[in-house]
């Protein structure tokens, strides 16, 4: 299944950039069963990182306690209007996705 793009918003205020990311992912824990009683296989993001231009500003480990279609907000020092912010995730099936946005 093709993955849907993330919605990324980044805004700089007083030298600090706030990034808000809405991620489209099932985040299936592997603990649930379907209507027929079969276990729904685990499918969740394991790693997520964010870059400001080419500099990594956030690395994180995700797990099954995080909701479906998660929302992530974080801040980093620096960043200027028009700079590129990119966010990448990798899930337990080895799928990856990267999306980017310009700082407003």
């Amino acid at each position, binding site marked *: 299944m093709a993955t*849907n*793009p993330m*919605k990324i*918003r980044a805004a700089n205020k007083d030298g600090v950039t706030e990034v*808000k*990311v*809405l991620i*489209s992912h099932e*985040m299936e824990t592997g603990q649930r069963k379907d209507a027929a009683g079969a276990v729904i296989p685990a499918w969740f993001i394991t790693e997520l990182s964010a870059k400001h231009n080419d500099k990594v500003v956030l690395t994180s480990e995700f797990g099954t306690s995080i*909701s*479906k*279609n998660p*929302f*992530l*907000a974080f801040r980093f020092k620096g960043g200027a209007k028009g700079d590129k912010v990119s966010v990448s995730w990798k899930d337990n099936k080895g799928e990856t996705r990267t999306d980017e946005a310009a700082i407003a």
Partner: protein
Amino acid sequence: MRQKKLYVLLTALVAAVGGMASPAALADKASDDAAIARYREMIADGNPAELVAGQGEELWKTKRGPKNASLEKCDLGLGPGVLKGASAKLPRYFKDTGRVQDLETRLLTCMETLQGIDPKTVIDAKWLKGERETMAALVAYVVTQSNGQKIDIDMTPPQMKKMYELGKMAFYYRSGPMDFACTTCHGDTGKRIRLQDLPDLRTQAGAAAGWGTWPAYRVSSGEFWTMQHRLNDCYRQQRTAEPIFGSDVTIALSVFLAATAKGGPVLTPGLKR
């Protein structure tokens, strides 16, 4: 969490024994309300309905069906292809179909006339599956374009008045093994189920809080629900027969709610627990 429940139970017992409302229990309710309000505020920027709306936008512009057409010429009441503010004025009476239609049934008409898609593919589908999932995505896209508008349905056509009366009747009509009506839960101020406040849908403010915030994304289940889905589930919770998708009773209830809520803010897509 367990401990907190126990605490609430204990204070409730103390209150019952003492024969008066416990201030601790009241404070607990107030802090829970504040916590929910804070949670809503935190997540308001990241309503995942946006993701569904994104899919809907793509579907809107995609050529589909036997006629291989997009929905871009769909008339939701404000003219072909006009989406801004359209859902704030629905349901409305449409001359071309001779029926009062809500957003979903109007979209069904567009899918049938423009794309040649059989409405049965939606009506007979399961919630969030197949063409009904497509419908939900389209709804998410359309209602996003009315966010911030005022609820403003046109009640002048006699067909609308008839639907309103039918909706009012359905709202107060008790049925099922529990003898529930809509008004059993939604006909009093300050009622709640667990921590979910239940709006009093008889009042303008209550109806606006309900009608104005659906369709919505439900965080607990990670699903986007249309108004048809919401109303259907009310019937399920009432333990009575679930209405057919887009049937007159669902539209009548929508007219009743939207007319009562007139002037209230449209905050769609909503975000629910």
